[in-house]
């Protein structure tokens, strides 16, 4: 359960996030939809506890991210915007490192490592150094290490960025699997099809504020458009520019 209330963030003269309020419930997939530069990544960075909001509160499973980031981080698994790996380590070593940092025991890390490798289909490459991995494999490794501690809240920043069709499908299946396990899944995207295919709930962000929040059907009726993509464009305030 993620609750974000009245969050703001300013960089110099640019107000990246003006007023973002939404919550994401357990057992559902919430999509954070917005075009490039709308404030999605900044919002997720503040949620991760690495960036301090100028105003507002953020809590994850009741733990306040700003005052107690460690507690919040323990119940979160985050695939951030930058997902750099260590080229000289193997996927299993990546998983083990993050497991150790979470204070997990060696046997428990082994169990989780086996489960994640199998779940993500990394068996063939699990003990190879990640230098030279494909984009899809890299994303899977980044996801595996983020989920080593079995977090109840999974946050994915544009998880299908740069993935081919097969990897994108695999990622969608993973997200559905997480929902089935009762996790609270929050992911950001600027791709309409992806959001509509997966999400129980959609939060649309434009110019740093939440402009719509509801089920896909809610959004359609709100804007009076039958096509979700048209609804998104209308909500983002991009229509005027598009017509010109």
């Amino acid at each position, binding site marked *: 359960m993620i609750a974000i209330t009245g969050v703001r963030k300013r960089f110099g003269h640019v107000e990246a996030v003006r007023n973002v309020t939404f919550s994401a419930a357990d057992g559902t997939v919430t999509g954070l939809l917005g075009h490039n530069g709308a404030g999605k990544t900044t919002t997720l960075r503040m949620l*991760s506890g690495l960036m*301090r909001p100028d105003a507002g509160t953020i809590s994850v499973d009741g733990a306040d991210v700003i005052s107690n980031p460690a507690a919040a*981080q323990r119940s979160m698994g985050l695939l*951030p915007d930058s997902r*750099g790996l260590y080229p000289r380590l193997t996927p299993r070593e990546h998983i083990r490192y993050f497991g150790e*940092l979470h204070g997990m025991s060696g046997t428990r890390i082994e169990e989780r490592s086996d489960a994640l490798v199998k779940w993500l289909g990394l068996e063939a490459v699990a003990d190879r150094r990640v230098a030279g991995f494909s984009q899809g494999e890299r994303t899977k490794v980044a996801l595996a290490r983020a989920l080593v501690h079995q977090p109840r809240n999974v946050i994915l920043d544009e998880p299908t960025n740069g993935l081919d069709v097969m990897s994108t499908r695999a990622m969608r299946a993973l997200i559905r699997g997480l929902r089935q396990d009762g996790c609270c899944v929050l992911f950001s995207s600027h791709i309409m099809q992806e959001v509509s295919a997966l999400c129980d709930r959609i939060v649309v962000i434009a110019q740093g504020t939440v402009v719509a929040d509801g089920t896909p059907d809610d959004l359609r009726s709100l804007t009076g458009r039958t096509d979700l993509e048209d609804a998104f464009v209308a909500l983002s305030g991009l229509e005027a520019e598009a017509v010109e």
Partner: protein
Amino acid sequence: MTALRQVWAVFRKEILDGSRDRRSIYSLLFSAMISPLLFGLMFTVAAERRKSADEITLPIEGAEYAPSLVNWLEQQSGVTIVPPPADAEKAVASRAEDVVLIIGKDFSKDMARAVPAEVKLVSDVTRDSARPKVARVRGLVAAYSSQTSSLRLIARGVASSVASAVRIDEVEVSSSQQRLATQLSILPLLLVLAALTGGLQLSIDSTAGERERGSLEPLLLNPVPRGALASGKWLAASLFGCCAVLFSMVLTMTVMQRVPWHDLGIRFRVSDPELMTLLALILPLAFFLSAIVMFASTFARSFKEAQSYLGILMLLPMLPGLVSTMYPLSGRQWLAPVPVLGQYALAADVLGGKPPGIGLYVLAGVSVMACAAILVGLTARMLKREAIVFGR
């Protein structure tokens, strides 16, 4: 307790990663090799030169004009008279000969008349390697000259002491240990260099490299205190630095055992505990230097940027070393708590055979570790700054 386990996890990961990084391993090995190679070369060359002065072959032109001088020279130990080259000056200029002695044909006549007899010493002053040999020959001729003049005075019923108004008695106060110290004074500099460069690559890779790869943000998403992260990385780099110092020391000692010390006129004991105490001085410095490098590289967004900062930083530990060659640091024990400078000052005393009290080692070690801890703390604080975490 958890934090300690996290430090251990970071440390192990960085060691594993570093040991697979060819650049890290090469920089460790290379930094360990500098000292033994340099020393081996330096002392072997010095010994060769001294040996060449002790056992000389001396070409003499016009030997037939001064049979008594040539005879006397031949009797001196280590001197072998050989036939002269065709053109003495050309032979020396072309470096075929180090020195040639030319005896004028009036030598015997002048000797008999008791006027200064002339000999020419052909040498090349710009040739460092020939200098001891030239000095030896000059000394020999001077000795013959003063011996002959004494005999002349005695023959005329004058005490030979009349001819020498001032006699110089050279009293050498430095022990042989101290003479060795002047040769070895470069060793602390080389060890400090090893301490700095041994962990350099690992330091950069685990800070600026982490930012460049974009792996810093995912790493910081783990519930780990920044201090634990910084400490683990620092300890890993320090271990590499310490290994470089230890390898360097062991290799240098191995080389030293093969140096012909007795040709240098120095008694050198390899198992010297004083030399071992150098390690106790320099090893804590590896922790300090790794902390500086880590702190500086955390500012850098990329490997290249870090290297440009560190180019300047590399001079820092070398400066006191260079200064000490002009301005001796030995005996300045009040410098002990100053990082790097203190180590050089105490090392100079150790090598000079006047080891400082154990309290000073402890003072220097504690001070250097405290400075390192402050730098690690500052690095940990930097890892909280958004400009560092997200600035790519």
